[in-house]
């Protein structure tokens, strides 16, 4: 059965896995460690489609009428957790 790919829907902003070097640059730019990034569940349809594993960072490019392109970064996690 051909699987439905959410990433192709026009309402879903562009998701991609952020390369390792860029993750480090991101973390130093915002003076944070990995755990202080927003989280995204591994079972998220986009994460599943990308095949990302926990600890990787997903880059989301969102379009907005006021900001043009805005970037958002979320770390893939296995399940909900505190902190």
């Amino acid at each position, binding site marked *: 059965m051909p699987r439905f790919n959410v990433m192709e829907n026009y309402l879903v902003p562009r998701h991609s896995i952020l390369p390792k070097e860029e993750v480090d640059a991101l973390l130093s730019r*915002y*003076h*944070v460690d990995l*755990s*202080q*990034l*927003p989280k995204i569940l591994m079972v998220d349809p986009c994460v599943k489609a990308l095949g990302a594993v926990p600890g990787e960072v997903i880059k989301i490019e*969102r379009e*907005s009428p*006021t*900001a043009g392109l*805005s*970037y*958002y*970064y979320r770390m893939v996690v296995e*399940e*909900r*957790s*505190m*902190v």
Partner: protein
Amino acid sequence: MVSYQYIPKKIGKIQFALLSPDEIRKMSATKIITADTYDDDGFPIDMGLMDPRLGVIEPGLKCKTCGKKVDECPGHFGHIDLAMPVIHEGYTKMIKELLSATCRVCGKMKLPLDRIQYYQDKLKEIGSIALNPFYFQSLSTQIRNEAMSVSQCPYPDCGEMSKNITLDKPTTFREEGHKLTPKEIRERLERVPDDHLPFLGLNPEVSRPEWMILTSLPVPPVTVRPSITLESGDRSEDDLTHKMVDVLRINQRLQENRDSGAPQLIVEDLWELLQYHVTTYFDNQTSGIPPARHRSGRPLKTLAQRLKGKEGRFRSNLSGKRVNFSARTVISPDPYISINEVGVPMPIAMELTVPIRVNEFNFDLAKEFVMKGPEVHPGANYVIRPDGQRLRITDRNKETLVEKIQVGYVVERHLMDGDIVLFNRQPSLHRMSMMAHEARIMDGKTFRLNLPDCPPYNADFDGDEMNLHCLQGEEARAEAKIIMRVQEHILSPRFGGPVIGAIHDHISGNFLLTHKNPMFSKEEAYHLLSRTSFRGNLPEPDSVDENGIEYWGGKTVFSMILPPGLHLQYGSAVYSGPEDPPEDDTWLRIDTDKNGVSFLRSGPIDEKSIGAFKGKLLEKIVRDHGSDIGRQFLDDATRIGISAITLMGFSTGIDEEDIPEEAKLRISETLDEAEAKVDDYVNKFNSGYLEPLPGRNLKETLEVEAMRTLGRARDTAGQISSKYLGLKNSAVIMARSGARGSMLNLSQMSGSIGQQAVRGERIHRGYQKRTLPHFKPDDLGAAAKGFVKSCYKKGLNPTEYFFHSMGGREGLVDTAVRTSRSGYMQRRLINALEDLKVHPDRTVRNTSGVIVQFRYGEDGIDPARSVRSDPVDYEDIINMAMREVQ
């Protein structure tokens, strides 16, 4: 820069545990055995509920346990040994799970050894519960469900069949109908082995499950339940003490009866009564049992009631605290103070104080305040010595105090003109509900508020009260002045326009002054400007009459208060479209001449220019010239408006809605026609000839058509009447300029009130098949379904009046429901967002430094500085560039 976050200390772990009976006895200062409190001489009885070893509440006495005095002694627990065990009401759910998940004979969890091993390994894997509470929770539920579904004890040496356990709320357990006594339950729980407990979230080192069944009860210290002495000398005990008395009495009776070998039935009854008292001692709102009541019939406030809800310890005493240096009184209007100011009544000014630290520069001034004492206005109430001792200034000791004052002392002087204070009106729904004002001390007993400040506070003067807080530190004052001052909040972050602006008469006045440019003599023109900040001479007169008397137009007068360099044009509030002839003077245009002076060329100043929420001119001035000039302009514009309305005169009355007989005739014809048309639809409906609209059935079609026809008839009636209501009419001036009221209000007064609706439909409820007995059953016509033909001026007939009240009531109910619902929504939002803040790198983070947004709002735009919904005023930039090219 390492991090924006500095976390001085982190909570390592929190552990919750059960109190064991041993521990209860160990921490107890005394066993309580008698239900009496005081003897006949008023001394506390030993081993009674007010035993002196439980702490001290009377000043001067020393604690028998720790030897400390009142306020030093924290109080000490006592305990009651219960004759028979009772269930702790708060743990019934857990007890039920434990009973169902374990074997009724051997007490082991009903899981085979390999499953137990498997789950133990899994638990070891996550280490501590604290590391992943969510995961633990789901694992624990899984284990519990698995064990509860097993019907036979899997251990070969037992193999007992399990029985179904039910919980009869609140505290009765049954095993297949047979009642389990707390004693039996306790015995079963005792059998559960330690290493099976972690699966249910219990740490056996600190919490054994049998401790959920109470055998001894801690008695809180007297400091927790102080008795109060009434004026009559009688003692009144705390609710908790009353409850403890109940527990002790029944406990005693139970013990006596049991020991004397009373019939089982009596013992059981007493046991149940003891259970009831212990349950209500913990929570007097336990569902399933009647709340314990005071002799007067008032329900007792027991432990849970002290903590729970809005009036509970958490929300009322921990999250919310009462403050000093604040005042509250009724507000009243004062149009002649600045929007930045607040009028403070003298009695309040002499009670609120500002601390000033004495130094060599203000030494004499400080002395002067103290010398005046507490009863003369700019005086002082207290002197604080460097050692922290507060000395009250009185008329008798002020001379001696003045001599003592040195550098380093603090003098608490009275509130004076110009002091920065915070002013607040509840409900505080947005940040403009609390703004910084400059105090202005006045006679009278009310806070005075300038009218443009009403919209942000949502205040009016029908008895509203407001709170004022006097700031006590330099940093607080500086911060308030820079970020909380009223003028800094003219533009709202909600929609990027002004929330503070001219209202009511300010708008009528400016409209009268500027519309069609009336002429004013020199005296009048200067009089109009006399209350404003305008200083200087009028320009060349706009006209000179045959007697050589000079006249200035209202637009010229208004232009005097405009800041320089303005270029604006837009349709005013009375503007009704591009075909509007220019002689109507409704298109607003403001230009700047070559000297940079702004001038109002055409159009009236009305709500669209200076009004709260809509004022474009005000918005432009605040945005381009800053809040200082913006405030100045608003103060000037409101004052010139009031000068104009008082100079020119303005009044309205019921005859404002008079329309000629012929108009009334035409209106009634229109309404009759509409009614006939509705009757026509009804006939068609009844005879089955009505064509249904797509997607609707016949009945719905009829309703839609009737609503539309009658709605249109009301509009037509309004149009007819408004033809006779021109801009000479005061009511129309107010409605069209946006000062107050609407054209709909006027047409309902002079034309027709129109269809009344409940839940968006014509009125249909009431009697069987009809709304009122005045109509025939199944009458679907206009009048029978709530169409009000009359106007307010003519008056409503009885059926119309009734329908109108029905519609009116719905509105009232809606507002009541809406406020409570949105209040709760707001509370949840506040709790979720309260500790998010924008950091210097423009990220939004919570208190542990976790990023929520990488830029504020994902676009980094401050809505208060954006133009309505756009980040930049494109049109204005283009116009500016165009002017430069020319």
